[in-house]
């Protein structure tokens, strides 16, 4: 259980005394917590310590490394029979929301050794946020192509809009991380960083492909024109948003959560608009995703009742559905951890439901969990312009909100999911950091023009020599066995 999520719980509830534990007990399952971790990183450490001291709880939330090590060491219970016999169809559906992509990681030679949670990535597409007031002032049309976006950035900067705009588009120092502007731009240019692509029946690493080289060449060109923040190499997300809110930049490549930051600008009477990213050509923009093993829940080989864990999943599913009000409250929901399965792609569903509500004026018959909260907040802004109360929700779920870009991606084949969906291998863990370092340095120095684009070829050779070839082999072995 994560400590940070249980601080603001309803009065009177504690880790020992809450609706979930009572419900489990009512059905004959007496649950006590072995430990409570602060966050995911602390949880990993605590589980490792519990493994090392041979003091595992029965039900264990694991990451992919832990799962693999525990499996190899025969420390996991075979839950095949319990799962087949007890798991309700609803639970099975819930756990296979991603089409069983992740669940197959839990099965070895036809036997099931745990629950691997479904992956979700629909929300993670690049979204453009820009100053609508400046756009109008400059006499431009909302962007409809990649060139429009750069032209907008250029106009804002050259005209020193607001008397303050000096930056075209900002990037952040961690150029390869998920949801950063640089990755958003790579994807818009049909280049992908750090995922595995299926090419001619084998898996190939995306960062050594010619598309990546081309994309870097283009960004270097924009940088040379002064359209990319020259200080991006030391900025984090916070610093990048600080530039936007203080008026130093008016175009931000972000993601569906952009309104959480933009609201501060809106309070300073700026006007912002959101749009999807546009490609350079007619091909749809595909948002990359590693679809990695994000987490699993396993049962200790020393435990006596694996069926209890499955029955807890049944109860979880049943009561979050039937007694929505009591059990689906966010604070209460956290007490069920690690028995917790999020609704995959809840936000895009809520987006559609809310927009249906706006056009028809009635609430859809069936809504996704979380819809009511969104509706209440978003309407405050739509009807009463209450910024504090509803700007964020309206700007995410409203007709021109950030989720519109997500919806577009879902409808238009807008995802590039890594073809490798297995658990992290030892070599990946070992070589990964170093290879990422080499790549980061290459990307930054090419964009900034410190190195010519030709140095990309040196990088490719370095990448292969420093473990890249080993990983390619490993990943392809996995792929062929599949």
């Amino acid at each position, binding site marked *: 259980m994560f400590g940070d999520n249980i601080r603001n719980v309803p009065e009177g509830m504690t880790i020992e005394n809450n609706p979930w534990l009572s419900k489990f007990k009512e059905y004959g399952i007496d649950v006590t917590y072995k430990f409570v971790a602060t966050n995911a990183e602390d949880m990993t450490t605590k589980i*490792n310590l519990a493994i090392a001291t041979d003091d595992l709880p029965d039900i264990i939330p694991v990451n992919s490394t832990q799962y693999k090590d525990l499996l190899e060491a025969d420390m996991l219970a075979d839950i095949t029979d319990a799962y087949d016999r007890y798991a309700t169809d609803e639970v099975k559906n819930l756990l296979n929301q991603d089409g069983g992509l992740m669940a197959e990681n839990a099965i070895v030679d036809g036997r099931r050794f745990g629950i691997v949670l479904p992956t979700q990535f629909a929300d993670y597409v690049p979204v453009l946020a820009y100053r609508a007031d400046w756009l109008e002032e400059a006499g431009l049309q909302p962007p409809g192509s990649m060139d429009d976006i750069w032209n907008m950035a250029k106009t804002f900067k050259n005209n020193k809009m607001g008397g303050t705009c000096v930056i075209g588009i900002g990037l952040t120092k961690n150029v390869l991380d998920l949801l950063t502007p640089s990755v958003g731009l790579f994807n818009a240019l049909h280049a992908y960083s750090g995922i595995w692509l299926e090419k001619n029946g084998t898996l190939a690493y995306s960062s050594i492909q010619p598309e990546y080289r081309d994309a870097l060449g283009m960004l270097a060109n924009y940088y040379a024109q002064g359209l990319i923040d020259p200080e991006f190499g030391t*900025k984090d997300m*916070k610093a990048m948003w600080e530039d936007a809110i203080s008026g130093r930049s008016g175009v931000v490549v972000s993601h569906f959560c952009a309104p959480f930051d933009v609201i501060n600008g809106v309070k300073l009477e700026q006007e912002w608009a959101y749009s999807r990213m546009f490609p350079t050509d007619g091909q749809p923009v595909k948002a990359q995703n590693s679809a990695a093993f994000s987490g699993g829940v396993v049962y200790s080989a020393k435990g006596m009742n694996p069926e209890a864990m499955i029955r807890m999943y049944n109860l979880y599913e049943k009561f979050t559905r039937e007694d929505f009000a009591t059990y689906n409250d966010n604070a209460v929901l956290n007490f069920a951890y690690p028995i917790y399965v999020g609704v995959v792609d809840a936000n895009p569903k809520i987006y559609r439901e809310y927009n249906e509500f706006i056009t028809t004026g009635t609430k859809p018959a069936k809504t996704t969990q979380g819809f009511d909260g969104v509706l209440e907040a978003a309407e405050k802004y739509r009807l009463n312009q209450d910024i504090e109360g509803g700007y964020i929700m309206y700007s995410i779920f409203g007709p021109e909100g950030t989720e519109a870009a997500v919806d577009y991606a879902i409808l238009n084949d807008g995802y590039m999911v890594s073809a490798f969906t297995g658990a992290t291998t030892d070599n990946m863990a070992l070589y990964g950091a170093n290879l990422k370092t080499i790549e980061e340095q290459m990307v930054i120095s090419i964009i900034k023009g410190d190195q010519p684009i030709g140095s990309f070829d040196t990088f490719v050779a370095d990448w292969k020599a420093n473990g890249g070839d080993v990983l390619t082999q490993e990943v392809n072995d996995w792929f062929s066995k599949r």
Partner: protein
Amino acid sequence: MPGRKKRTGPSAAKRNLPLHLMLLPGILIVFVYNYLPMGGLVMAFQQYKPTRGLLGSAWVGLQNFRLLLSFPNTKQVVLNTLIIATSKLVLGLIVPVVFALLLDEIRSRRFVRSVQTIVYLPYFLSWVILGGIFFNILSPSTGIINRILEMVGLPTQYFLGDNQHFRWVLVLTDIWKTFGYGSIIYLAALTSIDSTLYEAAAIDGANRFRQVLVVTLPGISSIVFVMAVLSLGNILNAGFDQVLNMYSPQVYQTGDILDTFIYRIGLQQAQYSLSTAVGFFRSVISFLMISISYFLAYRYGNYRIF
């Protein structure tokens, strides 16, 4: 072991019994909480997995060390660590001493006390916070330092993003953070100097500057010496928290240190063996440095630190 052998006789053993008793609780605690876990150092020579434990993990000999050396950046990283750590050691010794001496010259008690309290503040701010503050102060476009440089007609500098400056930024900001706290120990030592010594020196005609040379400095030299030798234990410790919060891939070339390097390797999967191997290497070097300086000081300065 140094120290002359002398016949002490049975009465000495009896006389010394209280001394052994005094040490007993400390020895016990150190044995249990420091020495017992040292068994874990074998991880440096294993491919340790929590599931297999210390006894069950595979032995790999020196493979972890070889692996570390095989990374293309290792040499640069070790060099960075040494340069940054050594600069911090040297300045971290000089600045607090000089500051303590300067403060000692000020007569106004109230002024001295306020200054002491203020310079000790930065020690309590974590690098997560200071990283953000220095980012703002040092920014080429908006930072105050570059505005000042512009005003006096100097070119602006990209302090945090330029490999030429980055190490200096690390060293100077670290000194800024710790010098006040570090000077406490010397301020305390200064209080123990016998004031009659100053009077004697004054009668001999020494001016204030000369008094500092002949009375103050010798008075605190032993503590400075101790601090210098102990700080050698940090010869490979360049300051993880600080670097992690101030560096970026752009300055890995000059700013990536052993700890951040290992940290990045461990991000995907806890690398217990690799980090133990690095820790072990660091401990051996520290131990050698301290031992050598101890014996040199004893041999040539006839001075015993420990």
